[in-house]
């Protein structure tokens, strides 16, 4: 943990070398997400409701998922850009250092520019809270925190799978973007609007719904059981198969060196 803090500081120092670049990228991140916000806004301005969800509720849903995603992208960026780490040989460097490999990959990249998107997510979230008529109580606040953490861990897991694939092949990883960017775009709306099939896939294969749809129902008190609020914690378990896959990947790397 102390070492991670060290990595954190050195990345902060690097960022400060290029202040303008940092500010512009962060601003860009903000604007990109703002676009999405406008998309949702105009859509619901016209149709008013989507499968029983109002504009502010969709906004709440999206902003929470976006926060989780942004946290994951900020701190687990090292896995997201792992293919270049392998191809330029930096991974060998990581292997000759006496520390946990995963920790070093995490520390290899921290993307502070995502602060822009985080800000956007927070703005949307506040707006969503303001507009929607949710009765806030302690349990619901906890649920939101669970959702954010669960989302961050879930996306980190997907990044790890993505990185582990790099051990086997360097090409053709674009399909993974279905899960990464796709999920973020999907996540704008509560998953059930896409139909039952998607709902099932997103529950049992890659458990998006556990951090998004079901706890959202709980937040909005739409036909929800109380235990829905703990589902995001279940999604955290998704990291275990990801970790195992990563281990297999490293073993493969050690035997092929490619």
């Amino acid at each position: 943990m102390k070492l991670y803090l060290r990595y954190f500081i050195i990345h902060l120092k690097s960022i400060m070398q290029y202040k303008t670049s940092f500010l512009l990228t962060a601003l860009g991140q903000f604007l990109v997400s703002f676009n999405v916000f406008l998309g949702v806004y105009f859509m619901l301005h016209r149709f008013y409701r989507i499968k029983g969800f109002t504009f502010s509720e969709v906004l709440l849903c999206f902003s929470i998922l976006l926060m989780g995603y942004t946290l994951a992208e900020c701190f687990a960026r090292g896995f997201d850009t792992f293919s270049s780490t392998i191809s330029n040989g930096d991974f060998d460097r990581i292997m000759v250092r006496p520390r946990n490999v995963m920790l070093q990959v995490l520390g290899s990249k921290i993307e502070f520019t995502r602060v822009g998107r985080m800000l956007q997510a927070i703005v949307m979230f506040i707006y969503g809270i303001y507009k929607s008529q949710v009765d806030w109580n302690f349990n619901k606040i906890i649920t939101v925190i669970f959702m954010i953490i669960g989302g961050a861990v879930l996306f980190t897991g997907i990044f790890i799978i993505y990185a582990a694939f790099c051990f086997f092949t360097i090409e053709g990883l674009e399909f993974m973007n279905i899960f990464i960017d796709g999920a973020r775009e999907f996540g704008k709306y509560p998953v059930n609007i896409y139909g039952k099939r998607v709902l099932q896939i997103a529950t049992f294969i890659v458990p998006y719904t556990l951090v998004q749809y079901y706890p959202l129902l709980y937040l909005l008190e739409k036909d929800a059981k109380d235990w829905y609020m703990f589902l995001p914690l279940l999604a955290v378990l998704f990291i275990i198969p990801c970790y195992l896959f990563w281990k297999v990947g490293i073993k493969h790397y050690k035997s092929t060196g490619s």
Partner: protein
Amino acid sequence: MIQVEHINKTFQVARRNAGFMEAFKTLFNKQYEYIKALDDLSFVINDGEMVGYIGPNGAGKSSTIKILSGILTPDSGTCLINGRTPWKNRVAHVQDIGVVFGQRTQLWWDVPVIDSFELLRDIYKIPPQGYKDKLEELITLLNLEKIIKTPTRQLSLGQRMRCEIAASLLHDPKILFLDEPTIGLDAVSKIAVRNFILDMNNRHKTTVILTTHDMQDIEALTKRIILIGKGKILLDGSLQDMKKRFAGHKRLLLDYDGRDLELSNGMVLAANEGHSDYGKDTSGFGLKHSIIDIDTDKIQISEAIGKLSAQVDIKDISITEASIDEVVVKLYKEYEI
């Protein structure tokens, strides 16, 4: 102490012919070819030894280094470094080794070098006092005083290489792997780096394994060389032995005026030039320049010069030994690698 016994390593390489159709075919039916990168490799390196590990590109040098540093697992064979197997005991093993990849940097690009050093201190868990002493020593020896507060991206290649080497020695490793440490450096930096490595070896008895294509590095640093080709060790011995094998050759550079040379047994014409019209003298022959290889087992140098000067009017003459580069080329040829 490094003990390597019967290490084998095979890589699977996807093969296809050129062309779009071929590329399309490989989508469904990949053809693999097995390449033996290391073939029954065995050697022992003692503590404090400096070894030059040479061989042409693709001979298996970096595969060996990767196995020794715990990055790769061999197919079979054993390797014990200070009692540990590198690929089984990675974390404990790498605490004892330092690796310099000449072509890649391990320093953080945008921050001053000292920040990178401090991060390394935490990565290797170097105690504060040990770090302070080591840093002072390295700063003095490598003359880093002025550059240590500069961001890495603003350093020249020579400055950066000095910092690289310092970075891999901070944790006081017992074994240092140097992968082409002088590549692209100017003469001054090269000599500084070489002197430093020699000094390190003297002071701390650091074992150094050096892979390089620069034979001057080898000449300046190592007493022992291991020559590898196509995954096999072809030669393991002292530099002197290797040179001696080819010491029977001297090279004569000759400027002369006269007819074409008649060479006797043991003399071979290596190059011939200057049969031009200018510089013509009264006798009608041009000023010529020839390079002649002499096999000293067959003919004495003095005798050869005597024979040559009897034939032509020698303007200038110099004798050189076969350079180590040429020795290596000859070795590669001899083993057909």
